[in-house]
């Protein structure tokens, strides 16, 4: 029954897009259908000139997203097809490349690909009931939504390896201490706090926000001299 409803909701609030993972019966487990619907929604967030920033939330009481829908695993046709499908629609590259600020509001279970989706956003706010973890290696899997790349870059390689190799679950206060989230608030205030954060960010002009994202995103991949050159060019393009 629940599969008749959209698995991803897209709503505009003023100049913000609120994107909701919407499979609450299964803690918003990431499914093939959710992948396809998220692709459409994130493309709209990127392309809609009226949208200046995005809030990503999970529907229901139990959590943001408990990970990939493992009941669908094993249905992939073959390795070559799986690889082709992965790059035909590079969903994680799309999320990472949105030139507008993105904030994830995290409550309850935030596991596996749920945590990875959050890590692909620019900022994260957690409710005090949030539970995080990367269970993949314990299930014979490796993260496939950027977890092995984003977590070391956000938390440092030591903490990232500890979390990825042990699968240990951790709470909101640890997430704050590790630098995974910038703020922990009571569950009832989560959406308001995440909205307020995005609202504060959106006081800046869109071009400056896009340039700042690019300076940090592309700059991190370059030797310092080349990154400084990129920064100069981006700054010049803003004052032009």
């Amino acid at each position, binding site marked *: 029954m629940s599969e008749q409803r959209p698995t991803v909701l897209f709503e505009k609030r003023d100049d913000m897009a609120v994107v909701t993972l919407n499979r609450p019966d299964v803690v918003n487990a990431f499914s093939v259908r959710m992948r396809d619907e998220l692709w459409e929604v994130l493309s709209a967030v990127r392309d809609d000139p009226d949208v200046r920033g995005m809030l990503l939330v999970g529907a229901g009481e139990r959590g943001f997203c408990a990970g990939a829908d493992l009941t669908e695993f094993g249905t992939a046709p073959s390795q070559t097809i799986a690889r082709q499908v992965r790059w035909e629609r590079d969903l994680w590259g799309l999320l990472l490349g949105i030139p507008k600020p993105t904030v994830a509001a995290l409550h309850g279970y935030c596991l596996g690909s749920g945590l990875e989706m959050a890590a692909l956003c620019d900022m994260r706010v957690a409710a005090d009931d949030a539970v995080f973890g990367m269970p993949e*290696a314990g299930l014979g*899997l490796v*993260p496939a939504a950027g977890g092995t*790349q984003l977590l070391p870059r956000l938390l440092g390689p030591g903490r990232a390896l*500890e979390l990825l190799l*042990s699968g240990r679950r951790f709470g909101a206060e640890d997430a704050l201490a590790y630098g995974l989230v910038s703020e922990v608030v009571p569950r009832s205030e989560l959406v308001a706090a995440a909205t307020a954060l995005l609202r504060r960010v959106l006081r800046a002009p869109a071009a400056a926000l896009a340039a700042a994202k690019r300076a940090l995103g592309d700059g991190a991949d370059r030797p310092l001299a080349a990154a400084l050159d990129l920064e100069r060019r981006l700054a010049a393009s803003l004052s032009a």
Partner: protein
Amino acid sequence: MSGDAVVVHRRGPVAVITLNQPGSGPDAHAAELAGALADACARLADDDARAVVLTGTGERFATGAVGGAAAAVASLRVPTIAWINGDCLDGGLEVALACDIRVAAPGARLGLRSVLEGRLPADGGTQRLLRLVGRAHALRLLLTGEVIDAAEGLRIGLVQSVGGPEAADELAERVAAAAPVASAYVKEAVLRGADLALEQGLRLEADLSILLHTTADRAKGLASFADGTRPEYEGR
């Protein structure tokens, strides 16, 4: 006798390497220790251990110029945990930095003092420290030769937790319960990915993830998840 400097024993799926550096001086038998540790790592490459714990004896993890041993530790495919029981200085810290995860005893001391003596850490210390704790903390520790305690190590990200041997054992057991090929790929994706642009790192991760579809352990892990049992992985 290299057999005395390093002792390896198995505790279930975990291989424990105990560094047993004799003598009291800062460089006591460090070269002998280095050779024995490299030999132990070479033997472990063919072992079926699911995790490796490296630790020391008494008040010492290791100190002095344990030259060349860090590279041997870093080359292990299996997850490695340093249980830093005591003094972890100079080459000893370089060995701990080559491990994937570090757990320190409350009384552990950590530092790279060679610059004070006109030498540069040459077993990966400057590079692994920089990548682990960032530029500011790495420069402070390298240039001052300051020795810090476990709590400060935790604060700057040099160690991932502070606790007794049971904390290290519990972590090792958790790590050893994962599927071995998945763990090795996670380690490869994190460590190789650190040298790549993010887009290239994401490609590496995706390729390793899809390659893993071919393993029997992946099917076993998914089946165990479905029926709520604990998987017995085979490493293939």
